């Protein structure tokens, strides 16, 4: 496996090199070179913004399909809470749970259940006063990856607890082993994912040696089949094991709400999250206890692998939870179990740094400032880099050349044209002089 695994990839055949995507990438990870987009692997955080904006559908999320069920003797589906928000007039999550079984899964373990346990553990951790405040949620893997490459100071504030999906994967496998007597590897634990970031974090978890989940299938892949099956499951709506608190995690604010404290902040949308992270880094939000950040607009309901309009999905979650019990899962111990925690702390990856040697980095920065003056500052993107500054940086890093800028190129062409006309002017002069001489003779 390469050092960075990503779900978001380019379909080269579909890419026209139009540069629509390069400016929307929050980590400036996309370049267009030789007419095709290219993702700089070490910078990509699998946020899916480029999938959202590509008019040619050339950016795709690599996940599994339902065929993967064949690979295991026994399978357990892990539905993300936001899956429940995709359907009209849903009486309760139980209908979806039953639908997934009709689809071919042997069992279902709701991520919302694990979410309630994580909320309980987080509450205990905050109340213990032992964790650094404000605590930053790590439920959105895009945010964790962003912090890892851009906000080293904030790593220590990240929640030490697993994401609900990871905890659900662990508990689901334990339950399945017990019930079937099968060895763990014969059991397929499959996450129904709203986004490529969660898919990528299964193949390359940060904080664990190996994910507790075996594969992920996009919500939009299971949705059409599930809709067809759900009417057969209608009478089974009270079999859900989750409550209001867990299901709310599917939309922005739900995770923070479950902490039963008002000293929280919940932001959604990647640009908004970056603003909050900057403020946290500058210690402007010290009085807050918990920070929930969702890279997608509206939270997970806004993930790029969803079907329903995120704002409508938000409303659907609200009406779905109205008659549900507040919660159904609590931690029975005061101590937080060790296996609720990440094995490792995140480690800073300084991929934005110009050079590991600071003196060299200074030289490069000087060179960047010198180069920038040559460019028009229009950030037009024709060069294939997202801005004039990033072109300058790319040149210094050896990825591009000054002539990639159409304005520099135009000036050079003008200069050449000027010299050419000057040369031909000189030649013309010489010719005339020679003719005059001839006449005099």
């Amino acid at each position, binding site marked *: 496996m390469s050092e960075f695994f990503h779900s978001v990839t380019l379909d080269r055949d579909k890419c026209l090199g139009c540069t629509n995507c390069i400016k929307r990438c929050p980590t400036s990870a996309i370049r267009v070179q030789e007419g095709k987009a290219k993702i700089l692997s070490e910078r990509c955080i699998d946020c899916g913004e480029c999938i959202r904006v590509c008019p040619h559908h050339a950016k795709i999320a690599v996940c599994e399909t339902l065929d993967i069920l064949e690979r295991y003797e026994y399978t357990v589906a892990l539905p993300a809470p936001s899956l429940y928000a995709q359907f009209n007039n849903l009486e309760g999550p139980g209908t979806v749970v039953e639908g997934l079984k009709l689809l071919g899964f042997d069992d279902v373990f709701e991520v919302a259940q694990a979410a309630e346990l994580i909320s309980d553990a987080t509450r205990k951790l905050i109340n213990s006063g032992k964790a650094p405040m404000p605590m930053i949620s790590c439920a959105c893997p895009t945010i964790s990856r962003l912090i890892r490459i851009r906000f080293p*100071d904030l790593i220590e504030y990240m929640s030490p607890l697993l994401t609900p999906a990871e905890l659900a994967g662990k508990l689901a496998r334990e339950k399945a082993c017990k019930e079937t007597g099968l060895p763990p590897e014969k059991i397929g634990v499959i996450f129904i994912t709203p986004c490529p970031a969660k898919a990528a974090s299964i193949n390359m978890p940060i904080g664990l040696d190996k994910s507790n989940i075996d594969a992920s299938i996009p919500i939009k892949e299971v949705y059409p089949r599930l809709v067809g099956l759900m009417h057969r499951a209608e009478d089974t709506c009270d079999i859900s094991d989750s409550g209001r608190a867990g299901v709310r995690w599917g939309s922005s604010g739900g995770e923070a709400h479950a902490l039963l404290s008002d000293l929280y902040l919940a932001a959604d949308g990647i640009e908004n999250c970056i603003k909050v992270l900057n403020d946290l*880094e500058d210690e402007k939000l010290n009085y807050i206890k918990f920070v929930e950040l969702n890279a997608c607009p509206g939270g997970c309901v806004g993930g790029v692998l969803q079907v329903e309009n995120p704002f409508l999905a938000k409303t659907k979650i609200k009406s779905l939870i109205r008659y549900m019990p507040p919660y159904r899962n609590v931690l029975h111990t005061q101590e937080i179990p060790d296996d609720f925690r990440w094995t490792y702390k995140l480690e800073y990856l300084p991929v*934005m740094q110009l050079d590991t040697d600071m003196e060299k980095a200074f030289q490069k920065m000087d060179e960047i400032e010198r180069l920038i003056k040559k460019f028009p500052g229009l950030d037009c993107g024709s060069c294939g880099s997202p801005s004039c500054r990033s072109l300058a940086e790319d040149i210094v890093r050896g990825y591009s050349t000054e002539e990639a800028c159409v304005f520099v190129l135009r000036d050079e062409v003008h200069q050449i044209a000027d010299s050419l006309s000057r040369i031909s002017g000189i030649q013309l002069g010489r010719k005339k002089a020679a003719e005059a001489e001839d006449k005099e003779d």
Partner: protein
Amino acid sequence: MTLHYIVPGDDFTRAGEASGDLKRKMKKLGFPSDVIRKVSIALYEGEINMVIHAYGGEITAEISSSEIDLTLADTGPGIPDIEKAMQDGYSTATEQVRNLGFGAGMGLPNMKKYTDEFQIESEVGVGTTVRMKVYNHS
């Protein structure tokens, strides 16, 4: 290298642009994060003061691998009693400014606290100049 920033005097929502830019550049240069944090907090407080108490001003940041040297100069009203202004909690901020969440009187004390060298000169009716240095210990 030397960086210049103009702080506009009429828009407090733009205060923070200079400290934000310097922070990004210091990360690219590979400064340790605690050095970046000190510089960024001290500079942000300075920017806010220039916007709220003066009519904006100019910032010069001289950065090298050994230290960050910041000069914040404005041609605002000046500070009559610097000793008093440096005290924790002393502020002349108006009610309106306080409602915006500023005016706790902690800006100057924090600037001094987060930097390794701190000097302030001011003349009433002429302006204020703050010089700060943060050493890079790495």
